């Protein structure tokens, strides 16, 4: 038992990347155990995507729009549901992690480990993003054959750039929502659900933000999801390249940078963990 004789466990110096990866590994193990739920969410995601995108076909059949416009609407709605599937998966994974650990009863043991809070958050975010990519690609692959859509004009590089930069800002939003239950043990979980609901309303997921009443449009500027959706639709429907989307990308990068202020906020985790269960 070599390790027991090691007088100072503290002498182990493990890099933040390896520590963060431990969280990815754990979430993957959990995910395997909850595969039935994963299947449920996949089916839900596919059905949601189909149900909403078929609205475009209805619009065409009812003669409200011509075939050409209806095709654009198919793409518009398809991208909206897919991006929202992706964003909500990231938001869920990150924002529910504290609630989850509280429910499992492991939170005290995780929080008392010698892992800096930001490493914990990065680990959870990396898992959230990877998990969301897998789920969204599956939904995309299953839903695509239902619609004859034309991707010939799409600039995929620009789309990937928007998703990559956008993921950082969404992870930040997820962390904000995830920290709430720690700061406010009584109401935090409810608050983090509300954050997600409001983001859905103001970000123009199924419509352009211009259709919202003026005062809601103002809020939409504050949601990174607005710019992600804008950028993705620009890249795939209009074929805008990275250059044309520079402004959107810059705004998203700014959101991402803002969230980097978070480690100082997270230093409050310890005092906020005071109502963790197990007393």
């Amino acid at each position, binding site marked *: *038992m070599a*390790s*027991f*004789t*090691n*007088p*100072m*466990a*503290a002498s*182990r*110096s*493990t890099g933040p990347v*390896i*520590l963060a990866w*431990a*969280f990815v*590994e*754990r979430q993957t*193990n*959990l995910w395997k*155990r*909850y595969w039935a739920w994963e299947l449920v969410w996949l089916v839900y995601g596919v059905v949601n995507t189909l149900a909403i995108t078929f609205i475009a076909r209805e619009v065409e059949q009812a003669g409200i729009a011509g075939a050409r416009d209806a095709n654009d609407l198919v793409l518009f709605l398809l991208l909206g549901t897919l991006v929202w599937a992706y964003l909500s998966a990231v938001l869920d994974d990150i924002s529910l992690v504290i609630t989850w650990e509280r429910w*499992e*009863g*492991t939170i*005290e*043991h*995780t*929080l*008392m*480990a*010698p*892992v*800096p809070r930001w490493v914990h958050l990065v680990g959870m975010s990396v898992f959230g993003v990877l998990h969301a990519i897998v789920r969204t690609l599956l939904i995309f692959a299953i839903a695509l054959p239902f619609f004859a859509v034309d991707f010939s004009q799409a600039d995929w590089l620009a789309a990937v750039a928007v998703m990559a930069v956008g993921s950082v800002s969404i992870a930040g939003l997820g962390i904000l929502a995830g920290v709430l239950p720690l*700061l*406010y043990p*009584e109401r935090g979980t409810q608050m983090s659900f509300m954050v997600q609901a409001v983001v859905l309303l103001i970000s123009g997921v199924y419509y352009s933000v211009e259709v919202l009443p003026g005062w809601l449009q103002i809020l939409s500027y504050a949601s990174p999801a607005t710019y992600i959706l804008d950028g993705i639709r620009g890249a795939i429907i209009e074929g805008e390249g990275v250059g044309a989307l520079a402004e959107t990308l810059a705004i998203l990068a700014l959101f991402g940078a803002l969230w980097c202020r978070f480690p*100082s*906020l997270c230093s*409050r985790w*310890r*005092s906020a*963990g*005071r109502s*963790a269960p*197990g*007393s």
Partner: protein
Amino acid sequence: MEQQALKVTNVSKYFGGGFDYRKLVSWCLPVTASRPAVAHVLRDVSFEVRRGEVFGLIGANGSGKSTLVRVLSTLLLPDSGSVEVFGHDVVKASGSVRALINRVSADPSFFRNMSSYENLLFFGRIYGLSPGEIRVLVPEVLRRLGFKEEMASEPMNHLSRGQQQKVAVARSFLTSPVMMLLDEPTTGLDPRSRRDVQRFIRDVQRDHDVTILLTTHDMEEAEILCDRISFIAGGRIVASGTPLELRERVARGRPVEEIDMEDVFMELTGHDLEEDEAPAEMAAHG
């Protein structure tokens, strides 16, 4: 390394109730959160534990033992007073303290659907152990605790409470802490498993120079394991000493070996160990 492992100085802890708007804004504005109606759970607690010592903390339900352990493990901030673990302050140097300690609580607290091995893998990894080290250590530790190895791949919620508790003990010793906080480690174990765990604790403590703080309701366990004992009642340390010293304090001429430790506790604290304490007093002591 320092000879003094733990130094607790005048620690008090309150639990405040109700919503406080200052908490809401305190991360962006320079205000400090106030404490409205409060329960005074730890009162001016002071004691020291020497390196390599096993120190027992005995008290009735609700006397503040777990709260104290949470303060020592950096999960709660003391409202006043200070705690040093091998010279590191639990508030100012929480990172250094965390690397030195680990804890077993009465409630095993694992990811229920993951196997014990997967749980141990995660909790070892976040203390910086490599998967290779964990693969070697886990079967060894589990064997010494009398835990059947073939159970290690079962989901935690298929294990009995006692088996889970053994995995919890394994989790904390796996990371070779220099200081262990054992909060009722044998609660819920059958006599045989209790002995397995007690023997394991004693062996590790003897062979690996671990300092242990143990809370328990079990007087026999305290006497077997502890070098020194403190009685805690109403959040206050009311008596401390070796088991023999504590007996002598109430002996009044009787031979010490005839005195039951439970009676010593009764006499020194004025409480019955089996009885819950009244909830911590409100407000008046804020």
